[in-house]
């Protein structure tokens, strides 16, 4: 026969503190990722290479690999060759940092393992109270 768990009653102030605290966590993590990216930017990592590419030599629709239909559409959008070159040369960099990849994978998998284990412990307690009484 399992003992029924009786939770403490939470005061109004406690309820308020808990709600606010959770929101502090959320905004904290939003701020953190911004902060982190700013540091990277400050150290010159993750710099934009688009400008360098656009600056090299004279650009023509041909050198940008645009055919006459593409050129017509760009012009219809109000883009001249120079403005279009900025967008066209703005490429993503998909080089993978293996260490970061492994760390990220471990964090995600570890998180789910922790969730399922801790949940299971709590779940068994719920089932004991629900079904064994």
């Amino acid at each position, binding site marked *: 026969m399992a003992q*029924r*768990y009786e*939770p*403490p009653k*939470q005061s109004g102030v406690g*309820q308020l503190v*808990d*709600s606010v605290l*959770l*929101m502090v*966590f*959320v*905004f904290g*993590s*939003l701020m*953190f*990722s*911004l902060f*982190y*990216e700013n540091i*990277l930017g400050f150290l010159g990592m993750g710099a934009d290479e688009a400008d360098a590419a656009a600056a090299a030599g004279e650009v023509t629709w041909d050198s940008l690999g*645009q*055919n*006459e*239909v*593409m050129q017509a*559409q*760009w012009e219809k*959008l109000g*883009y001249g060759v120079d403005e*279009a070159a900025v*967008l*066209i040369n*703005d*490429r*993503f960099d*998909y080089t*993978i*940092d293996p260490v*970061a990849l492994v*760390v*990220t994978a471990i*964090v*995600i998998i570890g998180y789910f393992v*922790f*969730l*399922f284990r*801790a*949940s*299971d412990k*709590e*779940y*068994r*307690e*719920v*089932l004991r*109270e*629900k*079904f064994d*009484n």
Partner: protein
Amino acid sequence: MSEQTATAPAERINLLKVLGPVHVWALGVGIVLVGEYMGWNFSVGKGGAYGSLIACWFIGLLYTCVAMIDSEVTSTVAAAGGQYAQAKHIVGPLMAFNVGLYLVLAYTMLEAADALVVGDLLAIVAGQFGHPDLDPKPFVVLTIASLAWLNYRGVFMTLTVNFIITAVAFIALVVMFFWTQPWNPGAVLLHEKLLTDLPYGWIGVIAALQFGMWYYLGIEGTCQAAEEVRSAGRSIPLGTMSGMITLLIAATITWYMAAGLLPWEYLGQAGVPMYDAAQMTGSPTLMVLLFIGTIFSAIASANGCINDASRSWFSMGRDRYLPIWFAAVHPRYRTPYRAIIFLIPVAVAFGFTGLLDQVITFSILSGLLGYTFMSLNMMKFRKSWPLDSIKRGYVHPFHPLPALSLLILCGATYFATFLGYGASLLAIMGFYIIASVWFHFHRYKYVRRADQFTMPWPKPQGY
């Protein structure tokens, strides 16, 4: 059940059961359709036009799995928290707390982004009519405040309005599709000359998966209505599946029109691609139509998000995962009114942080974590309660294939998020880990153990 029932009042106020399949469709498609008007096109930037189309269909497969799995579980666990209530019954409290947070944060952040879209569009129009630098803030707040008010006043009117504006936004896309004469290539649509090879190869296609989610992100929100739907076991699968079909059609024609009108480098970074595409056709009628469609889709999305986020927050309060104060139901309107009010300033704050990129990444990743949960949850659900042990309103075919495909596709999408937003990803995981530790060691002590398990099911097998 001794104490709880003895002290509880004889009369209860529950959420109102008034919705039908049409409302379920409106809730699901309403949240998502804005993704067809904008956002999906960043996947074109990530992997080229064809890369985006491949992502569109692969992610479409992911979401079809989501819709099938959700329909089965929700037709059995019909409660306001949707996936939150599923997690509570099938995996356990800590998982449920996390799922509840995924839902609240994904939807509230999406709501903020939607409201910003409305404000920015008005600012653009004001600029075109000779009033540059219109401050979008009052319109962002007005959008959130008026939709919250609508939600506060009752779910039936809220989702009826959502049905009308979502239908208008969807019809706008279909009208434009026929206007561009897809049966007559080269007349308006110039695919032959505009489409290129994959600019980044296949890694670009994988990177495109992240924004490919925009085509469908939020369709799983239909489950949140479970407690307010008449005969949930039938209406939710019907509304979700028809919603998914609507979105697959909308996503494909959206890609087809945009890729046939705009060079991919432009499309890949455009703010309002469908409005731009309408501009390229040179038809003022289409431009007005697509402008209305964009505004309506953003409003419908914010509206559905308020509905869903408040339901999750409310159900977590009801189980004391969050303060019990949030579990109140309005005696006249029968809505979770305190949860609705509490989330208004939160949404406004998300909108005004100036961190839109982070907010959107947070929203997408929360959704993705939720899908990962759904896949694992489905396998556990079938194992703990085999088909003949409890009544299911709907049984999805080919188990465990959908759950496994979902898990694999989630893995690929995590990788895509890592490629694009590695630092944000870790910061967001950090948040969920801290929140979990906080819940496990602090918050859970206020939760009544057995009371959370409300379904009349037998004891799960293996326990």
